[in-house]
């Protein structure tokens, strides 16, 4: 079962996964803005799907081991991990 302490896990996996997730999401964000303006660009659309595939895998692993990323991601059936810290604006989360 998920424990809140997993969020800060000593193995450093959660921290590394979060770092990778931020990088992926930044790339996705920029690709989305490009696609908004150039929706017919197939190369950009392909790149979007490449990034999204990686994101789905990583987000799933993160939510399983570290805690929910959104309110839809609470994996545990025995504890409500969404409210467990640290929250993103706290130094410990970064």
């Amino acid at each position, binding site marked *: 079962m998920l424990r809140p302490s997993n969020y800060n896990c000593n193995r450093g996996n959660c921290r590394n996964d979060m770092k990778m997730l931020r990088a992926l*999401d930044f790339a996705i964000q920029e690709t989305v803005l490009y696609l908004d303006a150039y929706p017919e660009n197939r190369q950009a659309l392909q790149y979007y799907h490449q990034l999204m595939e990686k994101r789905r895998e990583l987000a799933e692993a993160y939510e399983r081991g570290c805690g929910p990323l959104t309110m839809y991601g609470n994996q545990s059936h025995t504890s409500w991990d969404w409210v467990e810290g640290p929250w993103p604006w706290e130094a410990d989360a970064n």
Partner: protein
Amino acid sequence: MWTYDKKLQYPVKIKNPNPKLAQIIISQLGGPDGELAASMRYLNQRYAMPYGKVTGILTDVGTEELAHLEMVAAILYQLTRNLSQEEIAGTPFATYFVDHTTGLYPVAASGVPFDMKYVGIKGDVIADLNEDLAADGAIT
């Protein structure tokens, strides 16, 4: 609708609190060219946009501005952590502290609270996009 992502767009980890710096950076939260003004500008302009592409950009950029707002808030929160009254007294942050302590209240550096007067919304695509260019240099 919106869904919260429990992460910052870019990490914020500040070692040393600094109330003087916070008093300057707070303008990026609640000032005329801050992230709150930017998000309100784009998210409220989008309803009058006649083109899907532009509506999409305003929706996605306006949403991203909210993520920027959160990063600025994280900077301010961490810059003002665990400060004693002695550390605040005599700094430009002292007058803010009188009303808000270290709570985050969107104001400009001058202390004027956030105001929608900073934002232009005219229901006209050219007028609104020109406002965006003037406010943000570019809309992306």
